[in-house]
């Protein structure tokens, strides 16, 4: 590890062939170059704003702050072996899965537990009304208002996933998707069985109740090997 003895602030080392700090670059040049590299996905709203956007860039070169490296590192990466991870701790059963917009309003899960005594899904749902987009461009970023994510674990796999139940209407498509999500061959669907935890906390075999009943009561899913 080397230290740069600097009288002034050390200059930023040039990245390979592309340096945004020196050469007095102008954002417009940068943009011009990028347009050809990328298939720019320009939204309608930003098209309308384009003139003022370009004007902003045309006036003066963008002031880019210099970075101040505290260390000058060499490029050899240090290889850290990943932790031999212990099994992931599943959250307590009281965790409420969110409907609607995930993570909104922004409150930590310990406070969410306070809000409703029961785990009635609909009551815990923050949904966006239709046609509510303010500002430009609906952007299509908010999740659909009835999306329903539940946590899924597969036997033998440490990392849990989440699946959007509203995209499914049958046990078959759900199981197919889950098998695929964990990287297993989807033709081997028969090698797995799906269980779920209902809102009484009981684990049941999926498929015994009608889909509608299942959807209203499922809290989380488990994909097990059908080993018999």
């Amino acid at each position, binding site marked *: 590890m080397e230290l740069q*003895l*600097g*009288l002034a602030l050390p200059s930023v080392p040039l*990245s*390979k062939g*592309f340096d*945004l700090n020196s050469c007095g670059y102008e954002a417009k040049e*940068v943009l011009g170059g*990028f347009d050809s*590299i*990328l*298939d*720019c*996905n320009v*939204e309608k*709203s*930003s098209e309308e*704003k384009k003139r003022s*956007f370009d004007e*902003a860039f045309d006036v003066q070169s*963008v002031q*880019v*702050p210099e970075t*101040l490296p*505290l*260390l000058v*590192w060499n490029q050899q*990466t*240090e290889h*850290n072996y*990943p*932790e031999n*991870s*212990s099994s*992931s*701790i599943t*959250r*307590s059963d009281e965790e409420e899965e969110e409907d609607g*917009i995930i993570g*909104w*309003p*922004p*409150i*930590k899960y310990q*406070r*969410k537990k*306070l*809000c*409703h005594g029961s785990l009635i899904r609909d*009551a815990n*749902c923050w949904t966006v009304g239709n046609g*509510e987009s*303010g*500002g430009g461009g609906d*952007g299509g*970023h*908010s999740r659909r208002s009835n999306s329903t994510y539940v946590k899924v674990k597969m036997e033998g796999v440490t*990392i*849990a996933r*989440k699946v959007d139940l509203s995209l499914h209407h049958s046990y078959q498509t759900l199981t197919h998707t889950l098998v695929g999500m964990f990287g297993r061959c989807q033709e081997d669907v028969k090698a797995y069985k799906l269980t779920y935890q209902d809102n009484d906390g009981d684990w049941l075999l999926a498929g015994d109740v009608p889909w509608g009943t299942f959807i209203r009561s499922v809290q989380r899913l488990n994909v097990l090997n059908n080993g018999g």
Partner: protein
Amino acid sequence: YLSNTSTLSTKMAKSFPEEVLEHVFSFITSDSDRNAVSLVCKSWYEIERWCRKRVFVGNCYAVSPRILTRRFPEVRSVEIKGKPHFADFNLVPEGWGGCVYPWISAMAGAYPWLEEIRLKRMVVSDEALELISTSFCNFKVLVLSSCEGFSTDGLASIAANCRELRVLDLRESEVDDLSGHWLSHFPDTWTSLVSLNIACLGSEVSFSALERLVARSPNLRTLRLNRAVSLEKLHNLLCRAPQLVEFGTGAYSSELRPDVFSNLAGAFSGCKQLKGLSGFWDVVPAYLPAIYLTCSGLTSLNLSYATIQSPDLVKLVSQCHNLQRLWVLDYIEDIGLDALAASCKHLQELRVFPSDPYVVDPNVSLTERGLVAVSEGCPKLQSVLYFCRQMSNAALVAIARNRPNLVCFRLCIIEPRAPDYLTLEPLDAGFGAIVEHCKELRRLSLSGLLTDRVFEYIGTRGRKLEMLSIAFAGESDLGLHHVLSGCESLRKLEIRDCPFGDKALLANAAKLETMRSLWMSSCSVSFGACKLLGQKLPRLNVEVIDERGSPDSRPESCPVEKLYIYRTVAGPRVDMPPFVWTIDEDAALRV
């Protein structure tokens, strides 16, 4: 003052022996000052690195354990942060990373005299806890803030093996609660415990074990119990620890019994040094008067789990004339905030949490008026977190004018993109006034209907802003461009559900190297742009987090789900889960 001229530093290096410099440096405690000292000249760098005792790693992937231990061989105290802030709101998928084990493993070898470990949003396994407990004979302080991945078994190792333990603080961590017996693993002798916070634990700990532990911990100043500790037994603990300065109750409910009440009131009044109270789950209002005698001494009150109505809150709060920090639910309502403003002239920090965040219609009468009242009545107010359902530009302007000393302003209007409820306009002007008047503002969270204009105000006026949180705001890349091209002090930027795309990011790419991190989720940044950033800026890790499968399976113009960019000297991660991709210099996609 520190000089940069080489002749002077050479002279100083020759004229002052190392021991003197080291002694001088020992008075320099702030990290930024220490970093500045290390840059003066080579010998100062060497002296400084050998005597640095405390290190703060704001992003565990910005530097590697090996780099840390090589540079600073004599560290006694380490603080490390892992996941990005939005992980608190379920936006970071499980398994993303932030495992502490490699750090503990490296430090076990390098720092046998390590005394303090503080972790935030990291994955801590029982193995890591056990390793901590057996590697550092002088270990004193363990703070696990919003961490997860461990169970009470890990806590048992800490309790059993850390003979010098002073602080065990589990603040808001997720613990796999196997049993309450871990507490019995503390040695039977006197302990050196100063602070014990187990408020996040779900299951019951053995009360007698707790009682005996408290009795043999004469230095205990902070004790925060969990919900499972019943109210009737509380006086037993308080009587054994009258020296407590901060206390967190368990569930604050019981059948109404006069003996329980008088025991409790007596025990509280015996704690003459009490400055902070918390806990208060399931409050039965009739028991609140038991703490009235402590109120005049209280500086910190956390009632954010107390589901009691405004009148009871007012009775309590209006006796706390020395209150500096209040966390409360919106049950306090505007009327309660009026009382707060009248009674608590020393208030510095206010957090108002939503009691019912998922319904559209307000369940309580808490509006912008309450916050305006507090801003008028509390001259020392500097930190605000406020959840409400309506806001106006006029109110924000009033708040800004009343309180130019605000340092942290986080407003969450519960409905995304809600306009000024009086004029139906965007809230640009209101937030603009905040950044205009509050010149010391370091942290800002926006909400409500906002156009690109608010970002122009923030970019130009938010000169000291270090952390900015944006959700459902803006109209185009111009908004993001304003922020990235301004905000000289910006360190952390987190954005969700905004129509920001490639242009602003690419045009201001160098800015990213001056920041700790950038988070963008549900925006319009294309995979192609991510690749370009990753390629051209090797000192950044550009992480694409996408649970839909490899970004290569979609066109490059397709927006990524989530993007986390941070500067690093450690190179690309090697512990990424399958849904995280990073791009190295060859633009090769790494999983």
